[in-house]
């Protein structure tokens, strides 16, 4: 049976140690949105080294991520983080910013680069250009369809990493507007953005993480894994940087089992999984842009909404 990789994202050492990662093959370490995120691996480089060692001791691949939109003042720290990660034996570095990709390629040649979603790979030409900079895998921009992703991966001969579950990034910002609420809520950075903060407009909802916005609904491709496998995809992510250890554990377990069945030719979904998914879903499920529809739509047999936001 073809092997696959199921990975997830963890922002700091405490969350890493709290997480049951037995169903994962790899972990991305670091928070891409904010330097002030609590004990961010990308700022605490001894933690980053410890985290890489911890993950590798578990028999998993350890990847370090990097900031999505760094300004000049962040670059020295980015450079040090790359150095720490490479020194500690990180299996790859995820880059969302093309300047960081250049830095990685120039200063740490031969280090595999995983292109992140904010790098805006929309075409095969774009993907091919990044291969020249050491890219060995890419996360397509989140708003392109599976049909396009498949074409890019085939033409550029670069494996795609597919978000299969979790809140999809919708944007990144240079400014954290949550800081405006420190006095009002008596809640300070860095704990502010870790609250469940939703932005709602009618039926629409998004999750604010301060310097980033995520979808309010969780992308869920559980019913479509067989199609992903048939298209040749082998790398799958559970987006969980702002989720609980229980989310990471339970969702990971569901997808591990489902992917093993999908790779064995069985695309059926164990109905018992939906209860667990619902427990971990604040708003509802969606398929992102994979099927050429608005990112908030869901195609599948699961129609009823998950846990309803109480607002």
């Amino acid at each position, binding site marked *: 049976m073809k092997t696959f990789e199921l990975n997830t994202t963890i922002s700091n050492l405490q969350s890493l140690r709290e997480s049951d990662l037995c169903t994962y093959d790899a972990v991305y370490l670091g928070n891409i949105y904010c330097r002030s995120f609590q004990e961010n691996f990308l700022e605490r480089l001894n933690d980053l080294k410890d985290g890489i060692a911890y993950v590798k001791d578990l028999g998993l691949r350890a990847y370090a991520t990097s900031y*999505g*939109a*760094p*300004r*000049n*003042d*962040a*670059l020295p720290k980015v450079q040090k983080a790359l150095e720490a990660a490479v020194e500690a034996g990180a299996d790859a570095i995820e880059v969302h*910013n*093309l*300047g960081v*990709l*250049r830095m990685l390629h120039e200063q740490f040649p031969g280090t595999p680069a995983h292109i992140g979603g*904010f790098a*805006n790979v*929309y*075409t*095969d*030409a*774009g*993907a091919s*250009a*990044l291969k020249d900079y050491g890219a060995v895998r890419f996360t397509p921009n*989140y*708003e*392109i*369809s599976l049909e*396009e992703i498949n074409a890019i991966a085939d*033409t550029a001969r670069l494996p795609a990493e597919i978000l299969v579950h979790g809140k*999809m990034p*919708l*944007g*990144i*910002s*240079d*400014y954290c*507007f949550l800081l405006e*609420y420190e006095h*009002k*809520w008596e809640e300070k950075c860095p704990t502010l953005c870790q*609250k*469940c*903060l*939703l*932005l*709602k*407009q009618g039926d*629409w909802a*998004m999750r*604010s993480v301060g310097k980033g*916005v995520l*979808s309010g609904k969780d992308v869920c491709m559980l019913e479509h894994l067989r199609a992903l496998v048939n298209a040749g995809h082998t790398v799958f992510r559970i987006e969980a940087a702002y989720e609980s250890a229980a989310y990471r554990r339970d969702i990971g377990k569901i997808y591990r089992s489902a992917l093993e069945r999908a790779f064995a030719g069985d695309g059926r979904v164990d109905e018992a999984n939906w209860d667990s998914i619902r427990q971990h879903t604040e708003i509802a499920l969606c398929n992102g*842009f994979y099927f*050429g*529809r*608005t*990112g*908030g739509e869901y195609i599948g047999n699961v129609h009823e909404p998950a846990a309803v936001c*109480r*607002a």
Partner: protein
Amino acid sequence: MVSSQPVRNIARRGRCAMLLAPAGSLDAATEAFQAGADAVYVGLKGWSRGGARGELDRNGLRQCMQLARVTRKQVQLAINTIPKPPERRGLLQGLVELADSGLRAVIVNDIGLLRDVSRELPSLSVTVSIGAGALNLDDVRFYQDLGASAVVLPGYVEPQEIAAIKTKTVIAIEVMLHMVEEFIQLGKCWIPSYLHFAAAERRRTECLSGSVKRGGVGACFRICQRPWTVLKDGRKVDCRLLPSRQISRVAELGEYLDAGVDVIKIQGRSLSAELVGAVTRVYRSALDAQTRGRAVIRTAPALPPMWTVQGR
């Protein structure tokens, strides 16, 4: 909110930068040139971010290029959407024809297209659009490596950041000093198309899903400019617009020039011709004063809120 700080009374060494104004129509291009723009940037119908507002058809583009020739000014063509793979060849062929007609500069948003244009049309100067999200020194170096002639940085990048970039790169730095600073970084936002696909629904079979940068399909519904309820742990705690502000750093023009900025860019292909002319005149006046190295004691003009690109 616009800057109204007094310009400092210090001697400036003479600095020169091109003034690049938006032109969503031939009238706007005419106004911009008359107001003192050294160049205008225009969109080609179907190929520029923002859709039908602010785009010229090929005939309009040719007329604009002719106008530029007569006035000894320049035209940059924004092809800053991301073509589908099957469209790319046709777009490149179209650019060959336009280059033969005198086009000398394009603005792109996609690294693949940048590389293709640089390789296949070396006579064209290629600017990396603000939508590509360049923010730091290594971003600029990356695009320089790929063959770009210029990179556009947003107006919230500070002069000292630009000075640091200029010491280590050779390509031209453009700064969009008159723009809306959005809540989400330009080029890194697909919130509207996550929520709604109004434009695509009308011609669903013909269109790609996605945001404004996908070209004419998605649209920025300015979702961020409508009130959002903020919920914390399930309870409503606020109702607000998402942060966004018009910035216009004309009062700091001297600092940007001292930092080495090559092009001062004004956002707003959706602005009326009259407003394009008005904003351009303000920047022209300020730029000329700085270029002549004249010590200036004055309050920088407070640009009326309506002189914004909110309607773009």
